[in-house]
């Protein structure tokens, strides 16, 4: 083997890709040729430099960051597309009620004043909170906006997040949510007025009606932090990794309590949760939930904006059956 032949095979030799014969031939040429040995050293030293440079450019958690951005961007585009689409018929009769119109307008004004983009929670409802902190006990109703995975209500639901909005009013003794309305991508899919519960599937145009309230959680709205602690101490669920940390909201300068925990056993497991509470008022500011115990990957629920109200109109929690819909009573 001469030097030209050897150099042609050198990279294959270093990478261990040569057959036994060629490998042996390169090896014995290297034993006798100082020039080629120097070449080998030069290449391996460049390779080492490349390997360590490559390692230093490795971004470990990039997958999650990128997927999170994609999911948000996709939800945003979906929402924009939906804004252009006409709503289902059932939505229109509800909107005809003047009280509902008023409530909707009030919500819009709040959003307008805050100037919030749903995707950047830096200016969260701190404003709303600040203005009315003294009247906290009056907040029995809430509108939350954020995203939900279809897996929340459909077992075979795929990944990804859809824009979700929820209206909720708690009961008199502030221990549970009594009335609730949930819209996904602008479509009303569940509502309960405290006596009856309607579930609607826009794909099949089917309504199922139950003569009982929908009990979403054992938590109310205004005393949630306190109630979570009571639940933990009751031993009813298997809480794990309970952790409270404090921080300051950069936008408002208000002190926040960040609470995280996991549920490892029981009907809702595996789950992990992240809560952001305003420390003074103890009101919830933000919330995320995952269907694993380590808060990994895209969350199942991501509530980014919460607006508190003293009351929401009852009409919001009634259901008007859309034209031609199949109704199943149970």
């Amino acid at each position, binding site marked *: 083997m001469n030097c030209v032949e050897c*150099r*042609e095979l*050198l*990279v*294959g030799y270093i*990478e261990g*890709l040569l057959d036994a014969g060629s490998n042996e031939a390169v090896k014995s040429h290297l034993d006798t040729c100082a020039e080629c040995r120097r070449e080998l050293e*030069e*290449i391996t030293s*460049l*390779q080492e*430099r*490349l*390997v*360590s*440079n*490559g*390692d*230093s*450019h*490795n*971004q470990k958690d*990039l*997958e999650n*960051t*990128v*997927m999170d*951005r*994609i*999911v948000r*961007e*996709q939800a945003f585009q979906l929402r924009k597309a939906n804004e252009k689409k006409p709503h289902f018929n059932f939505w229109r009769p509800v909107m005809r009620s003047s009280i509902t119109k008023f409530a909707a307008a009030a919500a819009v004004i709040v959003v307008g004043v805050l100037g919030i983009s749903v995707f950047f929670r830096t200016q969260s409802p701190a404003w709303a909170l600040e203005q009315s902190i003294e009247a906290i006990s009056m907040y029995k109703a809430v509108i939350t906006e954020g995203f939900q995975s279809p897996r929340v209500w459909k077992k075979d639901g*795929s*990944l*990804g997040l859809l824009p979700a909005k929820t209206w909720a009013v708690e009961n008199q003794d502030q221990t549970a949510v009594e009335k609730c309305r949930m819209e996904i991508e602008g479509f009303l899919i569940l509502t309960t007025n405290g006596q009856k519960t309607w579930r609607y599937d826009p794909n099949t145009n089917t309504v199922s009606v139950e003569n009982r309230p929908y009990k979403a959680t054992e938590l109310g709205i205004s005393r949630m932090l306190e109630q979570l602690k009571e639940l933990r101490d009751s031993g009813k669920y298997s809480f794990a990794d309970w952790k409270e940390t404090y921080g300051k909201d950069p936008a408002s300068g208000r002190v926040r309590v960040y609470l995280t925990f996991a549920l490892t056993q029981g009907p809702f497991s595996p789950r992990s949760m992240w809560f952001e509470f305003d420390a003074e008022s103890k009101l919830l500011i933000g919330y995320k939930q995952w269907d694993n115990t380590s808060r990994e990957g*895209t969350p199942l629920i991501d509530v980014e904006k919460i607006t508190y109200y003293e009351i929401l109109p009852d009409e919001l929690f009634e259901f008007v059956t859309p034209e031609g819909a199949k109704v199943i009573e149970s």
Partner: protein
Amino acid sequence: MPENDGFYIQRCLDGHPDDFRHLVRRYKGPLMGYLGGQLGRSDLAEEALQEVFVRCYFGLTSLEKPESFFAWMLGVANRVAKEQVRIEQKERQATEKLAQIPAQTKSGRDWPLVKTVAKLDDFSRQLILLRYYGGHSCKDVATIMNIPIGTVTKSLSRAYARLREMLKDEAAQESEVQL
């Protein structure tokens, strides 16, 4: 090698966005290497890298040849890097803090090398990025680029020679400057 790019691209287009994760894992290193070389600053490169992946995801429907996915992404990365440079220049002009921009001396990053890699011809650059910044074996590189393994080793050999030459030139220029 689990699945080729075309498989994951099709999955994404079929409504399984989470499969894009595999493509991010496969190409984050090579693209970071390339953007590092183009931008010369790790903070800018990291920002640009996310942007490249997000744009590529939403551009998947317009990708005609899934087998040239990596080359296509490098094209997107090139555009994003140029935009980033323009934005950066504008910001600097606006704030007039040119002199206060800290030099990028983050440990472990070999900027002359990564800048030289970015200057290689397209084919050699793809090879080096996949092999060293993506940590793929020669065999995997051959599969990704859809070329025989012999071509990979031969082309790598040429790319090393070219890199060594360019690095030497650069070092020579630098020492002239110092004189």
